């Protein structure tokens, strides 16, 4: 697999300015040049303002408004205080969706990490056709998420479903299980699908981190009499730890916003048992037409996502300095 294909020269050590920047500072960039350079930023600035900033600000305003299908045509609706937040948080489906979002995310990350790390260690060993194996494992990560959901809906169906068939052939069950029709099982089935689709991401990133562990270090540890487990814990883990942190933070961010998968598999059902925050917010907005409450729910989802922001920025602090 291609290692990081990009940088042809190492970035300079922290604190040393890039060479062309030195001349720039020394030579005093003329004012018009500085404006000419800012022009490069205009398309992105306009885009970010329109597609990220405006919707978020609008969503925030909406969450404090008394909306109805009739107000959708006007720019603003009457102020409603925090009633949208109260109303939506009072619903038991919202409360369970918030709790479920966290348990779903935690369980997904736990299994994705351990399975992904195990596979990364496996792929780091020498065996025939490992290049092919490493590229095949990426596929689940690249599929449209709605299609993944639809495929798992098919695999978990009660009659003529592959999972039921396999379990029956192995004599683990005698009757087909209603995986998507009983609430407890449906949650489990969506969780399995989500773990499945995230494993490649963890595997690929952790594998590429393992490549950065110097072989001499492992050999030295081996000569010192460290066994495989000790080498993993004492030598490998500390070196790949920064990547593990990034992968878990990104995994958290991906998982709390899971939407397509749930819609494709269960549409939040049966009996709201697979309703997590993103599909529930959609449901409130577009099926119940409670725009204000949907916006309130979105603001809460946004706040949860933002918990990851300072951590993510801190992990990327090097790229901010450059």
């Amino acid at each position, binding site marked *: *697999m291609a*290692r*990081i*294909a*990009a*940088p*042809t*020269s190492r*970035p300079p050590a922290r604190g040393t300015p890039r060479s*062309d920047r030195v*001349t720039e500072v020394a030579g005093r960039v003329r004012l018009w*040049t500085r404006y000419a350079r800012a022009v490069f*930023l205009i*398309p*992105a600035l306009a*885009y970010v303002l*329109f*597609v990220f900033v*405006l919707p978020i600000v*609008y*969503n925030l305003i909406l969450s404090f408004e008394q909306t109805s299908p009739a107000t959708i*045509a006007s*720019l603003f609706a009457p102020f409603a205080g925090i009633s949208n937040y109260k109303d939506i948080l009072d619903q038991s489906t919202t409360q369970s969706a918030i709790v479920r979002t966290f348990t779903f995310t935690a369980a997904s990350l736990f299994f994705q990490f351990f399975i992904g790390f195990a596979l990364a260690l*496996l792929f780091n*060993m*020498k*065996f*025939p056709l490992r290049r092919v194996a490493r*590229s*095949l*494992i*990426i*596929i689940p990560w*690249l599929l*449209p998420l*709605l*299609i993944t959901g*639809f*495929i798992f809906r*098919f*695999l978990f169906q009660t*009659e*003529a479903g*592959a999972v*039921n068939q396999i379990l029956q052939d192995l004599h683990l069950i005698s009757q087909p299980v209603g995986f998507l029709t009983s609430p407890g099982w449906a949650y489990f089935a969506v969780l399995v699908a989500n773990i499945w689709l995230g494993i490649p991401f963890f595997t690929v990133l952790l594998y590429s981190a393992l490549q950065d562990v110097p072989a001499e270090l492992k050999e030295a540890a081996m000569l010192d009499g460290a066994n495989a487990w000790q080498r993993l814990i004492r030598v490998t883990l500390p070196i790949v730890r920064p990547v593990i942190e*990034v992968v878990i933070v990104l995994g958290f961010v991906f998982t709390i916003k899971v*939407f*397509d998968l749930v819609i*494709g598999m269960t549409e939040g059902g049966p009996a709201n048992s697979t309703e997590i925050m*993103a599909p529930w*917010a*959609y449901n409130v907005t*577009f099926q119940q037409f409670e*725009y204000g409450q949907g916006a309130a729910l*979105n603001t809460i989802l946004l706040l949860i996502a*933002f918990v990851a922001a300072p951590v*993510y*920025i801190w992990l990327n602090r090097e*790229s*901010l300095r450059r």
Partner: protein
Amino acid sequence: MTRHGRLTGLLAGLGALVALVIMLFPLYAVVVASFESNYQLLGTSYNFLPPKLSFANYSAVISQQGGHIVSTLVIGVCTAILTLVVALPAAHALARYRFRVTAAAVGGLLIAQILPSVVIANSLFLIYHKLGLLNTYPGLIVADASYNVPFAILVLRAFMLGLPTDVLQAARVDGATEWKLFLRVVLPMSRSAIITVAVFAFLQGWGDFIFALTLLSGSTFEPITLSIYSYIGEFQSNLGDAMALCIVGILPAAVLLVVAQRYIAAGLTVGSVKG
């Protein structure tokens, strides 16, 4: 290789084989299902091999969904183009020039990467409603690019920071304007990062569901994710067709993985770790 080494190699290979069989089984199941009739798919037992190889689902999909497949392709390609047009100049400026706001801009992009699309989609629906952008290609494509614009700027910037400065200096000494420097020197040198970004942006546009679901309703065009979604309502009657359409939906990812694997792996690693 020692005997011990050969044995562990063999065991590792076996382990990888088992892992791959489990990980790829869902895809195998769709391939098999796409050759089966509805009757077979909804029978009493699951078929690990198609009882009879039938291309009926595919011909049905091509005749009924051909237009949607073309629409999806247009959306994917335009999403990639828009992403590059927006991201490339910004990445260049953030990598090459020193602005007071550089750190803040990079931080902002990292945060933008975190935003849940469903939040953007719900608001964009109401904004588009007022702007008359619902049910239009431009409206959908602008929204679809949101998956990748922050990622694209960060990846391209990380790459451009690594370009050899002496070449850029030489071009500047030769009197190249900023614009020419960007077009003639930086862009050709950034080819591989551009391909990486284009591949990811295309796949996101191709596979988008949230924005299509919220921003299109009764539109004259629809991407295949919406078509597959509408099969769910009639799960019983058209499962075979839906499975063939799923294969069409998976195809670009599979093809790109074969022809552009290098760029995909680079995007996965650079984009996340070196953001």
